[in-house]
């Protein structure tokens, strides 16, 4: 599978994740989200940017509990609950935020 943007083809895997996370740009995020029928808002972007930075720093996407803990340090209590995150990403923030951030699909058992 693939996504087209500005005459460039971006390869994705069968679950819609970018094959190469380094080619991601902010313009790609809405297209990656489109497959899940999600329109990205400012609130989504906060999480997407955060998850991508986490990945670049630690070479892994954060599991939900680590994500909420790290978000709490940055944005405070209100944006760090898993309820808040699941409202934004109904199929699970670990699965969806990473996808729109251009990151690899987290291992199925994690």
């Amino acid at each position: 599978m693939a996504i087209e943007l500005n005459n460039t083809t971006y390869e994705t895997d069968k679950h819609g994740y970018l094959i190469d996370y380094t080619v991601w740009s902010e313009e790609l995020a809405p297209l990656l989200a489109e497959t899940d029928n999600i329109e990205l808002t400012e609130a989504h972007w906060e999480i997407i940017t955060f998850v991508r930075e986490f990945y670049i720093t630690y070479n892994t996407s954060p599991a939900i509990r680590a994500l909420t803990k790290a978000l709490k340090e940055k944005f405070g209590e209100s944006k760090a609950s898993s309820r808040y995150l699941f409202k934004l990403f109904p199929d699970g923030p670990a699965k969806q935020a990473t996808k729109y951030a251009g990151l690899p699909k987290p291992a199925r058992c994690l």
Partner: protein
Amino acid sequence: MKTLSIVVTTPPYSPLTITAINYIKSAIALGVSINGVFFYQDGVINASEHHTIPNDEYQVLTEWKALNKNHNIPLHVCVSASEKRGLSDEITINAQQTTNINECFTVSGLGELVELSTSSKRVVQF
């Protein structure tokens, strides 16, 4: 109540795996309740549907099946460790979804290992 969970990390062709099976059989005979076996690392290869072991050698899959069917022991395979080794319950062949993991095994994640660890008196790694 003595409860036990087992972690198997050795492949089906290793004598080490036979030891694990014999240990489980001893535990059952002594009345120990086995909460589950968790297959991790090369242990997941035990779950392959496609072993062909010569008839005069130890039939490891037959033994696991018997433990599952006759003693209701859940056999959990780590899905990520499986997929890295070519085993999956989501293989697509000719547009059909299929599996190459034997039906006696439950496709699970490492979370199941946590559950088994907390629910059992002892955890023994093989």
